[in-house]
Each structure stands twice: as structure tokens, then as C-alpha cells.
């Protein structure tokens, strides 16, 4: 277990959004988190790298362990270098070139060696399957790319700081099917190096890419098992209703 959430409850000052969730993530696996809108999927993964607490009024009670270390006692800045995040909409830095976007995490944390930066940028862009498309225009603004390329740029940017876990919050929901397929391919490629947690409301996507799937409903963890089992023989009635499209 590289990452583990124990009795995780969270909210925004009102009624709790998440009620005592227990989930363990295995190293070098892709875990999908599915569930209807508003079930708390995004809130859940935002707790894992403590991005949740930057929202005003956010509450979080949990024991979260990264390699057995208590995340709540770590400096959130250092935690986020190990647990990276990719967001729903591509959000490259508008003032930066493609190169600088990928290098930003390293540069802002004080790495100035140009050769090492260039190496890290190339490696990250290759991992994000974007290198061949942008290698001749690294100086152009990040925003000049298409939506799908921008999202892969954001994945490269997150990979450049070499996190151990990457959280993806519906990374394909703003993309077309072809761009989505390319991202799914690259996720399967990078899971050889790191642990991935992906929130999605696309059940086919969860079935295609993930090793394990967790089903959340109204802030509660209903079922967590191997993806194959969840999609063929779910043990809870509500899981079956959801994946067969009876609600949600």
C-alpha cells in the first residue's frame, strides 16, 4: 500500500460530503473512482494531496498515510511534490511557453541548471506522449496547443516533479474521444512508473484503464474491488444499478 485513507470524513462547513471512507491504493496500479455527480469523488482525491484545505471553510478529518507516514503532519507543499494532480480542465500557465510550463514545477522550486531542466522536460513530454508533436515549438505559448494537447502538457508538467502518486480529476471530461483515447493510452504507459488515482464519471473509461474501482454514492464508499469484478459481478445492488445505468 503506497497510499491509504482511514476514516476520511470531509465537508465544506455544512453536512459532510464524505463519511468515513477507507481506501487503500496499491503501488503502480490505476485506481478508478466512480459515482454519480455530487457523490464526493473530486472532494475525496483533493483530500489525498490536501488541496481540499485551500477551499475556504473546508473540513477534513482523516488519517492518510503515504508510505506509512502521516500526511496530515507533513508540510502540504512537500506532500504535493510527491502526490501530484491533474485537473478537469487543462490549465497551462498562460504566460509560459510549452517548455516553461513543463519546467515550472522544477524551476519554481529552485532548479536552475539548464541542461537538467531540458532533460527533465524532454523526459516528461515523452512520458505524456506529447514530445513528437511539440519538440520543434517548445518556445511557443502553452495555450497555443489544442485542448487535448494542453491536457497532456498538464500531465507532463505534473510528471516533471517526479511524484510517486498522480491524482487525476476527470482529466478527459473536456476532451473529444480521440484526445481521450490518447490520454488513456499514456496512463497505461505511465503506471509502470507511478501510482494513479483517476476520478471519472465515464464508466467505460474506468473499465478500460483501471485495475481497481471504487464506487462512491452520496459520500459513502459502497464497493471497492478489482475492476473486472466490479463490472461483471458487483456484490452490492447499488453498484449494479449504477453501472447498468439504472440511475446516475
Amino acid at each position: 500500500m503506497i497510499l491509504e485513507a482511514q476514516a476520511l470524513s470531509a465537508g465544506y462547513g455544512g453536512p459532510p460530503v464524505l463519511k468515513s471512507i477507507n481506501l487503500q491504493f496499491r503501488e503502480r496500479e490505476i485506481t478508478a473512482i466512480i459515482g454519480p455527480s455530487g457523490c464526493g469523488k473530486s472532494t475525496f482525491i483533493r483530500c489525498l494531496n490536501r488541496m481540499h484545505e485551500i477551499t475556504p471553510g473546508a473540513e477534513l478529518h482523516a488519517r492518510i498515510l503515504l508510505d506509512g507516514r502521516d500526511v496530515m503532519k507533513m508540510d502540504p507543499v512537500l506532500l504535493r511534490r510527491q502526490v501530484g494532480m491533474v485537473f478537469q480542465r487543462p490549465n497551462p500557465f498562460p504566460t509560459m511557453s510549452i517548455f516553461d510550463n513543463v519546467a515550472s514545477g522544477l524551476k519554481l522550486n529552485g532548479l536552475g541548471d539548464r541542461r537538467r531542466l531540458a532533460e527533465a522536460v524532454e523526459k516528461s513530454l515523452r512520458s505524456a506522449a506529447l514530445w513528437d508533436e511539440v519538440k520543434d515549438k517548445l518556445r511557443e505559448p502553452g495555450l497555443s496547443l489544442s485542448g487535448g494537447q494542453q491536457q497532456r502538457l498538464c500531465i507532463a508538467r505534473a510528471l516533471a516533479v517526479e511524484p510517486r502518486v498522480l491524482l487525476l480529476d476527470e482529466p478527459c471530461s473536456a476532451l473529444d474521444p480521440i484526445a481521450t483515447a490518447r490520454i488513456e493510452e499514456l496512463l497505461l504507459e505511465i503506471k509502470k512508473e507511478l501510482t494513479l488515482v483517476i476520478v471519472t464519471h465515464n464508466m467505460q473509461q474506468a473499465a478500460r484503464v483501471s485495475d481497481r474501482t471504487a464506487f462512491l454514492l452520496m459520500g459513502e464508499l459502497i464497493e471497492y474491488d478489482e475492476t473486472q469484478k466490479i463490472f461483471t459481478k458487483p456484490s452490492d445492488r447499488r453498484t449494479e444499478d449504477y453501472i447498468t445505468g439504472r440511475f446516475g
Partner: protein
Amino acid sequence: MNSYQRRRWTQAAMFAVCALCAAAALAGLFTILGYIAWHGLSSINWGFLTRLPKPVGETGGGIANAIVGSAKIVGLAALMGAPIGVLGGLYLAEFGSNRTGFIIRYAADVLNGMPSIVMGIFAYTLLVVPLKRFSALSGSVALALIMIPVVLRNTEEFVRLVPHSIREAALALGVPQWKVVLRVVLPTAAPGILTGALLATSRIAGETAPLIFTAFGNHFWDNGLLNPMASLPHTIYTYAISPYKDWHAQAWAAALLLMLFVLAVNVSARLLFRPAGGAR
């Protein structure tokens, strides 16, 4: 008349009213600009731009000292006012959603509506009285005080326009909050902030009242920042209320010069900091 025709008539009538109002507003503006240009152009020549004023009765003479003085006073004011305004605005936008922020914001809005002569009086009591002399420095302080609330609120607006997703992206990379603000948020908002600072600078360049009893004015080259100094708006004021015909003509010319300066700053601000590639 059916309802379609009635709507078309209403549309035409309202359009005409709007066009008329726009024309009325522009007419006043262009009349003033044209009038200043018409009166001012005849007195602008090389000597006017490069010579000192002549004593009353002698023809010729220029306002070179006022041009240089304005540049010094306004430049110093911008050097004092812009950094305070920008950093204060950054504070308001990033950390100002509390009581302190509310008070600063409220005070800035009140100061924005304050008559500029009040800033002059403040600078007078702050610097002129204790130093026992009129000085360019006190004029710059008065102008900086006018500039700060304008730049402050403008900076806050532009920093707030930076999408939340950009900050989240930087925070998620493990970048400390202060670095996110300084290295990611500030550069993203920079074109708007700099445009605002330049426009505020051109605004204070035209202020007269705060300079009357601070920089005071001077018919000769200035003797440094701790002595009285001439400035364009103050020269216009002194010359315009004088009884001499040739001074009136020079006041028109100085007004034209000031106007052209403000125009140049405004145009260059918009050209320099145009969003790249037309994207917003």
C-alpha cells in the same frame, strides 16, 4: 400597427437616442481638444520647448523648466506610488478577504473620491511645514497619494481576474503559496496592472491643485528635489490667471503639450500591454 412593426420602431428610436447621447458626449470632448489644439499650436515652437520663461514684457521665452519639472515630479511620484499600489493590491486580492482587507478597500475608495487639493494640504503639513520650504519632493508625495488608491484597486481587480485553476495548478506542483502569487499569479496579471499604473501616472501628470502649495512653481531651472520646481499644470494655472496676452498663449500651448503627453502615455500603454495573440 402590428407588434413586429412596433418593435422595429422602438428599436430604431432607442438606437437613435443612444447614438445622439454618444455624439453629444464626443462633441463636447472633441470641441475641447480642438479648441486647445487651435489655440496652442501657434505658440509651440523650438524655443518654447527649450528656453526658460522671459520676464513679463519681453517676448519669446519657453517652459523648458516646467517640462523637465513635470517629468521629475511625476516620475518620482510614480516611483513611490506604483510599487505601494501594486503590492497593496496584490495583498488585497490574495489575502484581503478579511476585516483588514475590507477596511483598506473602503479607505481606498474614499480616498479615490477625495478632492486632490486635500492631498496637497496633507503633503503641505507633512513636508512643507516641518522642512520650512516648498519642494518638488512634497509635490511628488501629494501626487503619489492620489495615485496609490487608483493603482491599488486596479491591481486588485486584475489579480482577481487570474483564474483560480491557475493557482491550483501551481499549488498542486508543490510550490509554496508566496511563490505562486509572485511567480505565477503576478506575471499573469502583469499587463493589466502595468496598463493601470501607466494610466494612473498620466492622470496625476495633469493634477494642478496638489502642486500649488507643495512644488509651488519656479521661473528658473530647479535647484533639486528639496526646492520649488516648475511643472506643466502649475505653469498653465499661473499663466492662465495672469493679465498678459502672451502668457495666455503660452498657457494654451502648455495645455496642448500636456494633453499630447497624456495621449502618448495612454496609447503606448494600450499598445505595449496588448494581450498576446489577441487571446484574452
